């Protein structure tokens, strides 16, 4: 490693630390310090953590969460591996479409997505009504912990898909060619060469899935599963009158689990070198499939896509449905819901694109910078930046929202309006919440680049800044874009923190408009229509960025 502590690096690290301090640590600290105090005043204490350990409900919830998160990682891998491998490793028609579609499950609009899934997979959803009619039995897709695993795997497998695909694309084909020259092929080639080299991407995705599922509130609650840790925290913090420290104690436990997970993954990856001296992102060689293999491959891909896109099919049906109740399909179809939301939605769409775009841009810049500082410099305490940013994953949206109100509402602008009423505050909250996604993607991308390329550039006289600009960033493009897309898409449907921070309808994003509609019986169809619009917007943005990645890779990979 050539790195020395240059003043530029120190300044960068301090700037990021300041950003995280002001917009993450201070607001969160103003809320969670309650966990360390006894109710009704009194000094600092750890008695609440003892209570946590003594309460059966919390201990049971903790193990339920561990079980669900671990099993979700397994099932999400089962869904993601074939899609990632087939679309990056083979000449596969529609690979880009598959990548885009495979990403959609991550964008499930709040509330209305839940209703759509109940209507399809619920106890009296389409599937079960038909099963009951034809075969006289029902399947509890959405029952209990296994129901949570089922939905979470569908919802979050794109994390693995995106990061793994980016990693697979980044492996230099010469590695494979070398192995082939030595006589390896087929599954062995995949197992021994492609998979190990893509491990940083897989781990990045899998650790995100684990932590995200551990901290997710929406899916368990939509299935009415309350005996998991994150829902317990949420229920306690948001119930009026029950102003007790335990909700915040659970938040602290969630944060600790998130940090521990990131620390453990860092430990797993330690001492292994995944970097290859690539020529600039040529990616794996794409092979032709034999006709029979082709049929099998398409069958697998279509089957997986049908499963993971079912909720969106339900959403589209719901948005055109007149009444849909206790029947496999809606009673009738109408365009009325779309005409109803079309007038309102333009301001929501504009805000959503603005907020999610800005937030994702902030995330990529900061995430990329943190990854660089951690992997390429020897600044003391640089790991803390990574861990601090990763805690954002575990901070419940309500906690962050309340923290922002506490930290910034008292700060007035010159004209007397509170700082917290500005829309930029919403952007910052979303950016903080989605930062870990971009960070993990950037981290994985950088791990795959050999330091020797940078050393070569520096030996040839390039400055550090120039090396970063001309060598590191271009090589990381794929990973950074994957991070941008993940942050952007999930930011577009973020609700929990937004709900607390939105001050007026003209500043509200789509998710808020959707929430407002979904609180009334008559708003269900309109909410679904708004949900479809949200998904379409994100899908178009993603497809464009996929196109960009593909173009740039082709251009660079093929020219050399």
């Amino acid at each position, binding site marked *: 490693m050539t790195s020395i502590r240059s003043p530029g690096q120190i300044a960068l690290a301090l700037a990021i630390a300041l950003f995280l301090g002001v917009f993450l640590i201070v607001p969160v600290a103003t809320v969670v310090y309650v966990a360390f105090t006894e109710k009704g005043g009194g000094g600092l204490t750890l008695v609440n953590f003892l209570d946590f350990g003594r309460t059966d409900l919390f201990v049971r919830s903790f193990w339920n969460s561990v079980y669900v998160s671990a099993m979700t990682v397994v099932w999400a891998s089962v869904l993601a591996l074939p899609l990632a491998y087939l679309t990056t490793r083979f000449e596969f028609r529609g690979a880009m479409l598959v990548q885009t579609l495979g990403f959609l499950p991550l964008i499930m609009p709040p509330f209305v997505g839940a209703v759509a899934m109940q209507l399809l997979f619920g106890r009296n959803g389409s599937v079960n009504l038909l099963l009951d009619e034809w075969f006289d039995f029902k399947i509890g897709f959405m029952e209990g912990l296994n129901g949570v695993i089922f939905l979470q795997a569908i919802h979050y497998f794109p994390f693995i898909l995106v990061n793994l695909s980016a990693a697979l694309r980044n492996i230099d084909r010469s590695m494979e060619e070398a192995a082939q020259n030595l006589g390896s092929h087929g599954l062995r080639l995949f197992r021994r060469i492609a998979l190990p080299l893509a491990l940083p991407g897989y781990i990045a995705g899998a650790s995100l899935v684990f932590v995200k599922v551990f901290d997710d509130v929406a899916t368990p609650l939509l299935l009415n599963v309350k005996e998991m840790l994150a829902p317990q925290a949420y229920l306690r913090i948001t*119930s*009026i009158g029950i102003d007790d420290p335990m909700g915040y104690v659970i938040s602290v436990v969630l944060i600790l689990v998130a940090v521990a997970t990131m620390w453990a993954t860092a430990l797993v990856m330690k001492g292994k070198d995944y970097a290859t001296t690539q020529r600039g992102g040529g990616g794996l060689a794409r092979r032709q499939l034999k006709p029979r293999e082709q049929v099998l491959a398409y069958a697998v891909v279509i089957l997986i896509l049908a499963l993971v896109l079912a909720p969106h099919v339900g959403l589209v049906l719901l948005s055109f449905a007149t*009444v849909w109740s206790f029947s496999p399909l809606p009673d009738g179809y109408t365009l009325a819901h779309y005409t109803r939301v079309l007038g309102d939605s333009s301001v929501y769409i504009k805000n959503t694109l603005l907020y999610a775009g800005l937030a994702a841009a902030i995330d990529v810049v900061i995430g990329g910078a943190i990854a660089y500082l951690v992997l390429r410099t020897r600044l003391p305490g640089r790991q803390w930046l990574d861990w601090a940013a990763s805690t954002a994953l575990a901070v419940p949206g309500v906690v962050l929202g309340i923290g922002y109100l506490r930290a910034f509402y008292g700060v007035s602008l010159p004209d007397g309006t509170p700082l917290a009423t500005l829309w930029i505050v919403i952007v910052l909250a979303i950016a903080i919440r989605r930062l870990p996604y971009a960070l993990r993607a950037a981290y994985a991308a950088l791990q795959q680049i050999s330091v020797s390329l940078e050393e070569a550039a520096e030996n040839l006289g390039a400055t550090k800044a120039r090396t970063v600009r001309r060598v590191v960033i271009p090589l990381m493009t794929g990973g950074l874009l994957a991070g941008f897309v993940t942050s952007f898409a999930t930011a577009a449907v973020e609700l929990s923190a937004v709900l607390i921070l939105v001050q007026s309808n003209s500043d509200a994003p789509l998710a808020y408009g959707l929430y407002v509609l979904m609180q009334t*019986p008559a708003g269900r169809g309109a909410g679904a229509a708004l949900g479809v619009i949200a998904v379409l917007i994100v899908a178009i943005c993603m497809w464009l960025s996929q196109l960009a990645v593909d173009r740039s890779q082709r251009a660079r990979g093929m020219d050399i």
Partner: protein
Amino acid sequence: MFRRSALVLGSALGLVLASGAAFAQTGKVTVVTSFSKDVTDPIKKAFEKAVPGATLEVQNRNTNAGVKFIEETKGNNQVDLFWASAPDAFEVLKGKKLLSAYKPKATGIAEKVGSYPVNDKDGFYSGFAASGYGIMWNERYVKANKLPTPKEWQDLAQAPYFDHVSISAPSRSGTTHLTIETILQGEGWDKGWRTTKDIAGNLRTVTDRSFGVPEAVNSGQVGYGIVIDFFAFSSQGAGFPVKFVYPSVTTLVPANVAVVANAPNKAGAEAFIEFLLSPTGQEVLLEPTIRRLPVRPETYAKAPADYPNPFKDKNLQGLLTFNAELSEGRTAAVDTLFDQLITFQLEPLKAVTKVLHEVDAALKKKDNAQARALAKEARDLIAAMPITEAQAASPEIKAAFTGGKEKSSRQAELEQQWAAFAKEKYAAAKAKADEALKLAR
């Protein structure tokens, strides 16, 4: 000359001030509300028409988030009004001195609706509409599963309803809290909890959002829901195949509006309250998407034929006199008891209830005194409560929830005790019920 110009200047200044005041009275009125767009849009439109120059800025948050928001932003308050259903949310705000008292000038408003006083006795919030609790059900679901039509709360405890009923947790929904409290006050502490647990044994889900219940009934995921009336009425209005009934033990509860302390546009806030209570404002409540019960008796003359009228309808007369003080004194205890004994112990409670239904069916075919006695013992075990009515309102227990000095144990400790109590009793009841079933068969 000098004098004259001073006079002109003075009157000009006065004019500016006056117009400033007029502007303040009509300008932007910011309201935090839990009411949906379907409700707020027509009212906003009517208000802005009735008070020219006024604009209503609606911030939609659920009740809990709204309370939190006002609490967190009190140092630099930008909100004029809080507008929601649950009276207990207003009690919380009032207790934290976040409301400012206002006595509406409007006349012709009923003192009581059902048996509940319309306005806060201290004048901090005013009722503008009433709603009652009841049972809604999905007709297709009921027909497909060949289920009966309920009339009373107790019906929901019967065997055919097992696994078909949904309710929202009282700790999450102010209105469900009032329903449970109504049952407790109507039947007494012990009997009331017995009824509640009997119904709870048949629950399919306990949701964490009030709207989660009508949502599940509308889409046919559960058959019956314990809901506030307008959820059912507006679902019918949206075309869903649902029906609704008021049981005889119900209570009508006012939905309220209050001026927030240090409101930036106090005059505008008061103008909005006056509008809500005016004949025009009350008539807006009759719209199909809103369907609340007006608090102005004369407005019912303009209502559709089948519209419930709490001032005339026989089934809505002579309702229980709701004791708000009693309710307020034990709110946290009742909510936490429900969560610890029912919400988080639902599986064991349902397991024993299922067996008891089977015992009843078997006993109907062939009576067996011993089995009958065992089943009764099991039911008594289920009904057992970890604390008495007096304890629930005692300073020690209250302080455990508020962090006061008198507390004998922390909230977390109490919760664990109650949960352990329920777990043990339900397990013992299950053993008795299993034995009874063996004998009865």
